[in-house]
C-alpha cells in the first residue's frame, strides 16, 4: 500500500539522509521522510515523535520510525524547536508510506537557523544523489 512510483516534489528541500523540509514563511518548516526512505524501510508500524518544545539539531536524530523488522532514526534537515507533531500518525503510521509528503508529515518546527536551508538539496539534486548512491 505504498506509493508505487518514486516521487520527489519540486517545492521541497532534501537532506541526504532522506528527509525533506517544506519551508513555511521565513521561520517555520515541516519535516518528513522521503519516498525513498519509506520504501527502503517498508511498512511503518510505529512512529515515536519528539515532545513539543524539544530543541532539535540539524543532522541529528529527532525521532524514530519503525517497520516490522527495523528501527531507523529520523535526521533533522534543519535546527529548531518542535512546535507541533503529527498526532494522527499514532493510530495511522502507515500514512508515512502512503502519503509521505502530505498526510505523513512528522513535525512542524520553528527554525533557529533558517539559512541552513541553503545547504539542503533541491529535488533534482536529491534524485541524482539516489541515482549515484
Amino acid at each position, binding site marked *: *500500500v*505504498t506509493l508505487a512510483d518514486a516521487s520527489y516534489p519540486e517545492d521541497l528541500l532534501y537532506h541526504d*539522509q*532522506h*528527509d525533506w523540509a517544506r519551508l513555511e514563511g521565513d521561520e517555520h518548516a515541516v519535516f518528513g*521522510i*522521503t519516498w525513498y*526512505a519509506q520504501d*527502503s*524501510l*517498508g*511498512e511503518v*508500524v*510505529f512512529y*515515536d515523535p519528539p515532545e513539543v518544545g524539544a530543541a532539535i539539531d540539524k543532522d541529528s*536524530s529527532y525521532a*524514530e*520510525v*519503525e*517497520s*516490522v*523488522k*527495523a*528501527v*531507523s*532514526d*529520523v*535526521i533533522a534537515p534543519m535546527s529548531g524547536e518542535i512546535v507541533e507533531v503529527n498526532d494522527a500518525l*499514532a493510530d495511522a503510521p502507515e500514512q508515512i508510506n502512503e502519503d509521505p509528503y502530505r498526510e505523513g508529515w512528522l513535525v512542524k518546527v520553528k527554525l533557529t537557523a533558517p539559512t541552513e536551508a541553503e545547504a539542503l538539496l533541491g529535488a533534482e539534486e536529491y534524485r541524482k544523489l539516489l541515482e549515484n548512491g
Partner: protein
Amino acid sequence: LAGLSNTLPRVTDSLRRTSLYERHAELGAKLVPFAGWEMPVTYEGVREEHMAVRTHAGMFDVSHMGEVEVEGPGALGFLQRVLSNDVAAVALGGAQYSCLCAEDGGVLDDLFAYRLGGDRYLLVTNSANHAADLAWFGRWSRGFDVSVRDVADRYAMLAVQGPHARGIVAAALEIDLPPRMHVAHARVGNRPALVCGTGYTGEAGVELLIDPEIAPAIWVELLDAGVVPCGLGARDTLRLEACFHLHGNDLSPERNPIEAGLGWCCKEATGFVGAEAVTRARAEGTTERLAPFKIEGAGIPRQGNPVLVGGETVGAVASGSFSPSLEIGIGMAYLRSDLAEPGTEIEIDVRGKHRAARIASKPLYESPSSRKEK
C-alpha cells in the same frame, strides 16, 4: 533517516543463491544476506505476507536450510547419542524436534529428524550451523555403523503454511499429504520428493523437500494456485508469535535447553551428549529462563533491549518484533527465573524509553486452524 544501511545490507558476489532466485527477482523481492545466502526478506511487505499465512496460505523458499542423511544399522544408536529427544520413539514416517547439545548442555543447533526408512533418517539443520553440525556428527559417529551424508544440495525446500495451505498443495500438486508431524514420500514434478507435515509458523501446512531443478516450476504452480510468496521477515514474525525458538537469538551454545524452555524435547535417559548437564539443570533449576512477553502500550522491543523490574536489570530481550496479528510489540526474553511467570509486570528498556510489558504464556498468538488440528 539513518540506519538504512543496516536494513539494506550490501549484497556481495560470494553469497549463494537458491534454485528459486530468478523467481524472487521476478517478483521484485527485497533480497538480503542471510547465513551466507542471498534470501528474500519480503516481497510486498512483511505485514501483508504475515497475514496471508494467518488467514490463507503463504510459501517460503527455505532452501538455504541444510539436510543430512543418516543411514545404517547404527543410525538409531548414533542419533540417540547426538540428539536430545528419544529418537527410538519415532515411528516409520514420523517427525521429531530435537536439540543438538554440547557436553555442557549448550545448544549447538535445533532440528527436525524425519524417519524415512527402517534405519534411514533425514535431519534438517539451520543453514548457519550446517557445516558445524556435520563436523560434530563426524566426531560422534565414530564407533557407530552409520553413514552421515551432507545432502543439502539435493533438496530445495518450500514451506507452504496457512489454514488453506494443505488443501491447495494437495490439489495443485495432486499428492496425498501426511498428517501433522509425519513425513511421506511423494512425486512432485515427476521427481521423488518428501512431504513433511511440519512448519515454523504456528499454522497448519507442509514443508516440501523437492528436486532443485523442478522447484521453480512448482513455485509457479503454487503461485498460480493463489499461494502468497512470503519472505524471511514474515517467517520471523510468525515463528515469534508462535513462540518457536530461533537459534542465534533464543538458543545458543551458552544456553541449555532447560533455560530455553525446551526440557520437553530432552530425554536424558537416552544418554545423549549433554544429558548430564541437562539432568543437573532440570534438577537444580537455572538462574534465568526464556519467557514470552507482550508490550502493554506503545513501543517495539528489539533483540538486546534490557528487561527491568523495579528499575533493576533482570534480563534481556532475545527476540523482539512488532506482532502483525496482535498489533503490539512482542518478544521473548531471558530473565531471572523467579520472574519468568505469566502475569509478571516488567519493563523493556527500548533505546532509553521504559515500555511497560507483561510476561505472557505460550504461544503469544494461537491460530484457530492449529487449535482445531490438535
